[in-house]
């Protein structure tokens, strides 16, 4: 079974977001980079499926040369190959999807399954996986939190309020996943060292048009005014219940 997982290098933003002077990007000079949580689950799923069914797991990203760091992280988790569609420019979702679809078409491998994160942590465009499926005329299930592959058929589950929807599609197919699908593994130090030496297949992607033009970014104002302290011991329980009554939720 041949699986391709598309990932994205994104800044870690557990700390305060600072913008560049021209306000068109996050100042990442003091931030690290990572793979979005949804995509970590996609990598893990691809590795587990290859362990179960055989074949190989390829991980692909579109981005700068620095994104090889995230490809190597995926290889350390067990992916077999890394492909970088190398560009120093910022690409929107439509152009990114077209480039990925072109790369899949041009690849020597016939992929059975293309895995994506449901949306990237930073841009949250919610569409790259769907657009790749449309471009390649493949079925697509999004937001998946349960996946089983049997005899060339993917059974996918996704959450809805109060329950789960179940889908079955024939392979080849595109599946976009959400965190909770599995528990991504921590690679061993040995695997990390081996991944540092892995060959990365660098390619020049073809650039397509995007219709959404970034003007500038803004960090919204937040109200960080101090909270009213109801108490500093269990004696505050009465005040807590008073608040619930005042707010008319009980």
């Amino acid at each position, binding site marked *: 079974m041949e699986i391709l997982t598309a990932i994205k290098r994104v800044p870690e*933003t*557990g*700390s305060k977001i600072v913008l560049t002077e021209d306000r068109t990007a*996050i100042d990442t000079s003091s931030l690290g980079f990572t793979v*979005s949580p949804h995509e970590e689950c996609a990598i893990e799923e691809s590795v587990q499926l290859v362990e179960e069914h055989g074949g190989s797991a390829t991980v692909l990203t579109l981005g700068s040369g620095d994104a090889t760091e995230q490809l190597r992280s995926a290889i350390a988790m067990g992916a077999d190959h890394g492909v970088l569609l190398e560009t120093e420019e910022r690409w*929107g979702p*439509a152009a990114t999807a077209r480039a990925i679809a072109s790369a899949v078409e041009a690849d020597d491998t016939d992929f059975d399954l293309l895995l994506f994160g449901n*949306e990237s*942590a*930073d*841009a*949250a465009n*919610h*569409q790259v996986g*769907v*657009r790749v499926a*449309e471009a390649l005329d493949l*079925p697509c299930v*999004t*937001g998946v939190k349960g996946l089983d592959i049997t005899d060339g058929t993917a059974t996918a*589950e996704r*959450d*809805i*309020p*109060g*329950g789960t929807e*179940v*889908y079955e*599609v024939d392979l080849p197919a595109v599946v976009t996943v959400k*965190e*909770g699908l599995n528990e991504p593994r921590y690679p061993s130090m040995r695997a990390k060292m081996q991944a540092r030496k892995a060959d990365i297949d660098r390619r020049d992607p073809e650039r397509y048009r995007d*219709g*959404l*033009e*970034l*003007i500038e*970014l*803004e*960090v*919204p104002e937040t109200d*960080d005014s101090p*909270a*009213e*302290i*109801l*108490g*500093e*011991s*269990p*004696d*505050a*329980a*009465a005040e*807590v*219940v008073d*608040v*619930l009554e005042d*707010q008319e*939720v*009980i």
Partner: protein
Amino acid sequence: MVLAFVEHDGGELDDASAQTLTLARDLATGVDEPLEAIAFGPEATAVAHDAGVYGATVVNAVEHDDLDNYAPEAYARTVVQCAEGTGTDAVVAPGTDRGSEVLAHAAAKLDETMAAEVVEVDPDGDAYQLTRQRWGGTLLEHARLDADTKVLTVAPNEVSASPTDDDPADVNPFTPDLEAGDLRVQCLRTEASDTEGVPLGEARIVVSGGRGTDGDFEALEELAERLPDAAVGASRAAVNEGWRPHDDQIGQTGTKIAPEIYIPCGISGAVQHMVGCKGAENILAVNTDPDAAIVGKADWVVVANLHEVVPAVVEELDRRTE
């Protein structure tokens, strides 16, 4: 025309769709075009009342033998066919899982860009100036969308649904012309969740726990049981520890909640978590650390150990209801 894809429960519009219609109505006024809605399912005609209240003049009610089950590509094909031939300026949908999925397919079929998680939009000549959320709303992007047909989704719980006194919308039965390929992905069946009680995303009160629980959620469960329409959630840290299932996770990559009161207990308030609970109207935090990030976002705080405070609150509730 501005066309809004809306979701409903038995003909009753959901909150995210009411918010979407409100944004779409203002947009339609700005471009001097009528606002129409498109709704799917046997009760789609019943949406005419609510859609009219939020400014739609027409509901395109889609009933089709092949659409008994949700089928994203078929839905998207239908939306595209409804938009085509009418000079549609924009197609808008709520940024829910389903709305995002249908519009992503529709945007691809139209070969147009989709702007996701929009919170504001203003016409600017043939283009739109818009503001959209990134990083779950911790960052805003101001952008210009230039397309023949603009496709955009509206971030849930970021636009206030604002009813008008308009009459119910007219109903236009709409039958799409579907091909077999449009139906290759369909929901086979729906399975009810094992979880009892109110779904996290719909709860009026959410009690949640983080690392400070040390894995003991019993008191939080007891508190939620005593509160009406309440659910128990968890931080990513608690889920990563294996103390709670991922379905309970509140955060950017978990469930986004919008309760009337959110009661985080032993949760520090990491950015990822705050993205998930920023729809809460009020926050009442219980934390031993008065400098925790969550305290800066809370309306009220009890600075004490949750394992002592929460049982005391349960006792107080019991005492007052005796």
